[in-house]
């Protein structure tokens, strides 16, 4: 039994990691009051950027940071359209996804099948010695370990820093933030762009750690799952991590079933995460407590006068 479960859980952690980054990025964005449906697009383009930088410079860390920057650039496009031009957030986000995914396919053609240096798993000193838990959590690459820390930083940011408080105020009631002398426009830019950075990191994980070779459609709908996970998580980092591992688990399980050669058609198995997405949305709507979405989510700040 353990021979089956431990690798499964380890794979769960692995496939949950990009979801953690992307979901936290989207939570950051939405807490600031902006809905970004471009996660899928940002993830795929930043995965390519990470691959390309690592491929040309040989440094995965540069690729990792470059992906974050690419995420910031693409998110700032969205921010500009929504915050400065008062464009529709849903339309802009969808456009960003279509644009990002298409551009990735186009630019990625020469790299299909090529390898780039990436992050390789290593045993975390001491902690990997813990029975079971060590095998599941501490025999991964650096980006996985980093993803253990980020949610805590995230929580700390919102609960213990004034900037976090300001971002929440902007997402709840921009007028109140403005009346308190804050600058809601700037805060929203901050939320969207820093959220884009995290989403970009999620993309980098796909091409630098999850696989080390480039294929088309690497993001494979993870961006959409991240958007759903934000609702599942009620905009809280702790639940986001739980949700990311739940979905990661489904993906890993589905891969394993395929490898074992079940008679189930693979396309049905591939649907599992999405069915779970729908189920989770229905369940959180039915049984969830009051869904505490940021009150101003999806609405633009209209200029006065």
């Amino acid at each position: 039994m353990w021979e089956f479960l431990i690798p499964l859980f380890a794979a769960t952690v692995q496939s949950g990691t990009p979801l953690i980054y992307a979901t936290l990025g989207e939570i950051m964005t939405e807490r600031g009051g902006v809905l970004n449906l471009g996660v899928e697009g940002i993830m795929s383009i930043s995965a390519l950027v990470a691959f390309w930088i690592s491929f040309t410079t040989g440094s995965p860390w540069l690729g990792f940071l470059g992906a974050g920057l690419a995420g910031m650039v693409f998110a700032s496009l969205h921010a500009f359209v929504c915050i400065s031009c008062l464009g529709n957030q849903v339309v802009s986000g969808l456009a960003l996804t279509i644009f990002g995914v298409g551009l990735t396919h186009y630019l990625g053609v020469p790299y299909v099948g090529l390898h780039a240096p990436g992050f390789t798993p290593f045993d975390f000193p001491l902690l990997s010695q813990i029975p079971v838990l060590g095998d599941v959590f501490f025999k991964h690459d650096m980006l996985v370990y980093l993803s253990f820390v980020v949610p805590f930083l995230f929580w700390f940011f919102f609960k213990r820093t004034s900037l976090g408080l300001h971002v929440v105020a902007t997402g709840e009631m921009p007028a109140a933030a403005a009346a308190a002398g804050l600058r809601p426009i700037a805060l929203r830019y901050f939320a969207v762009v820093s959220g884009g950075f995290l989403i970009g990191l999620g993309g980098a994980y796909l091409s630098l750690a999850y696989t080390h070779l480039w294929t088309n459609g690497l993001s494979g709908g993870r961006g959409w799952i991240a958007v759903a996970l934000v609702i599942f998580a009620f905009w809280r980092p702790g639940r986001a991590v739980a949700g990311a591992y739940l979905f990661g688990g489904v993906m890993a399980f589905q891969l394993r079933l395929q490898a074992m050669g079940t008679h189930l058609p693979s396309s049905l198995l591939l649907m599992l995460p999405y069915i779970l997405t729908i189920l989770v949305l229905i369940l959180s709507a039915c049984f969830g407590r009051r869904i505490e979405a940021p009150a101003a989510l999806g609405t633009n700040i209209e200029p006065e006068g």
Partner: protein
Amino acid sequence: MSELMFVRPVSVRSLPEGTQPVVSLKGVTKRFGKVLANESITMDVYPGRIKALLGENGAGKSTMMSMLAGRYCPDEGHIEVDGKPVRFTSSKDAIAAGIGMVYQHFMLVDCMTVAENVLLGQEGTFFINPREMKKRVGELAEAYGLDIDPAARISDLSMGERQLVEILKLLYRESRILIFDEPTAVLTPEETNKLFEALWRMTEQGKSIIFISHKLEEVIALADEIAILRRGRLEGELDPSAITSKSELASRMVGKEVILEVNRKTVEISEPVLEIRHLTGLGLTDINFRVRKGEIVAVVGVAGNGQKALVEAVTGLCKPPANTVFIMQQPWRKFFAESTWNRSMCYIPEDRLGLATLRNQNMVDNLLLTTRKGFSNGPWLNKKRAEKDTLKLIKKFDIRPGKIHALAWQLSGGNLQKAVLARELYREPRFIVAEQPTQGLDVSATEEVWNRLLDARDISGILLVTGDLNEALQLADYIAVMYRGRILGMLPTSEEATSGKIGPLMAGVTD
């Protein structure tokens, strides 16, 4: 009318010779496009005094105060603080200069605590400590005798408590000039009383208060001086002790004689249009009453005592238990199944810009919201005719700006309410549910709405839900007082004693 219980501890506070104004407006002018919102206004505010700013909707009070609060920059003229000219580019500048404003719609973040709201933008450090924040705000509240729990979430607080949070915000910022935009609009009489006491205490500590209001009796009761604003210009400043009557003040405010009492001619009362029998549920307990054609029944009470559930049950927004609500002598379910667009029921909701109208649609489309069938041509809408009729209504009800392509949100509160009323009366309803129909309206708009409702009695019966006792006494034939989901009394306004009985009943005292 004894709604307002506040009495100034000192009736007249004289201003010592040579007191320097703490803030002055010097020839301030503000334009929005072609509209002149404020025209060369010069006004001084002195420390330790309450200045009331009185004016109709759209008279430019809010614009003027928004300039003081740093939201807008004056186009001409300037503002002086302590005799020195200042130029505010944001509310942060105004706060730094000691000017703070409590907006009509509270600027509070509902999901955050009192302490977080008070300290928002004033945390001082990048890292924050929630416990320390609560302590700081708690001490501040205590110092000014304001009773509030700093750890409470805003969404759990009453309107009166939320106002205290707004005041705390200003006190924390050490504001010397506190501006209140219609602070009593959402408060119960007791809360109003408490607010006025708190305002008075603050002036005793040297703060200056600017108090914007429509309510004449409040202005007379509270202010040290009254500034009247009319059509963007300062009409004059008065000493409240020199005012002999409310109607004098009202006429100076609107520039024409306004009688706040309306003439009620008697109308023949006939068949019932609403009957409620033993309605229990939805937070209501054993409600029984009826409204007949030709009469107005007012439901009064402190907000949150079941008025909302009652209105929702009657208007079809939520479903009452079977055989409790009868409209036009038909059971609820049957009435709503067969409802037609005209000669039926209409609803004038409290929420004008949310429930009553679509904010981004023009007047024609908003008219068509509830009267569509009158303009249908098979499956098509006859928009030409709708436009013509809208124009007629705009003329008849004097809705400004008189353009059919004006969007709902561009209309001021009074004009929007007139538009809603025009639309609903166009349907020649036989039963009208009017919820806070004059809340936030100026005197002349209120008078007009009142007269329209009284005229409507010729064709319909009216259920009026209001927080304004004077409105109930002026308009209604009967006043039902609600308390905790029950109707504690059904009082005829024809009896002298009624006005005195309402207050105790609202507080739940039945004997």
